[in-house]
């Protein structure tokens, strides 16, 4: 009886994910898109198309005092990074997801790890990230992301 209830509970969670689960899935999918292989031209095109669907039209990304506004600006920067030919892997972890009472916005706090392979030598950078996702057309999209400096430079 207990086993049946457990299986039913797990099946329900899998078939009908909560908003928090869907936001976490959107975060993972975004990291996967950003990590696509620059040596794969077809993958580049599909990743760019996918990235556009994962960003809100008026997305704002803030890092090191610089702000990028709009989907085109963000995808443009991503394309320039990819054009350098360096393989990049993005991982997002230590996530705390809070979905707003309206069910239309969610805040995400976590850590972004960027590993760049330059000439076969990996360079690793970790930053705390605070992000906002919005629900649009039955999908959670990145609306804002801010890189937070745990250590404030002088």
């Amino acid at each position, binding site marked *: 009886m207990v086993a049946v209830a457990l299986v039913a509970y797990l099946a329900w969670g899998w078939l009908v994910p909560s908003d928090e689960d869907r936001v976490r899935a959107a975060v993972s999918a975004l990291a996967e898109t950003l990590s696509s292989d620059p040596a794969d031209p077809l993958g580049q095109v599909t990743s760019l198309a996918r990235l556009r669907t994962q960003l809100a039209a008026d997305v704002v990304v803030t890092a090191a005092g610089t702000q990028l506004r709009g989907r085109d600006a963000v995808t443009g920067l991503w394309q320039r990074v990819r054009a350098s030919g360096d393989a990049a892997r993005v991982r997002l*972890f*230590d*996530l*705390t997801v809070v979905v707003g009472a309206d069910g239309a916005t969610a805040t995400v*706090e*976590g*850590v972004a*790890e960027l590993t760049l392979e330059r000439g076969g030598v990996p360079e*690793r950078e*970790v*930053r*705390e*990230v605070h992000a906002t996702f919005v629900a649009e057309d039955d999908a959670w999209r990145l609306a804002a992301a801010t890189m937070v*400096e*745990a*250590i*404030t*430079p*002088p």
Partner: protein
Amino acid sequence: MADGLARLVVGRDPARTLVRATVLVVMAGLVITYGILPVRGQGPSMQPTIGNGQLLIVSRVSYRLRAPRRGEVVAVRLAGEEAVLIKRILAGPGDQIAIDDGLVVVNDVAIDEPYVEHRMPWRMQAVTLATGQYFVVGDNRGMPMALHTMGTVAGERLIGPVVW
């Protein structure tokens, strides 16, 4: 022989051995969960003190009992604890810190830093730390200052000192 091995494993009183083993496992679990944080060093900023891939143990309880101290190597929390930054505290709340030609000056006194191997001529204007603020830097001063993560950090972000 078999009896001897069995006695070696479970002792003379198996029930008592089971209780002891359970207490040990629970205590070890509590220490690992709440007492320490194992961290693996990555990157060049703390060299030569901490090498790439070196295993470190951070105390989670020290700063519940006392304030962080100047000179300690500490773990700085990001959003969680899967990845932390390892740095050295060079100044605390109320201190004034500056860097002149690579030499760190705290409250107008150049501090002795035997752990620093190479120094580039870093320069930083004097900064006075507010309440609850600490100034942290890595030990690798042979790298360009612009590539080195250093600066002020809130005390709440300090998880604890590296104890091993």
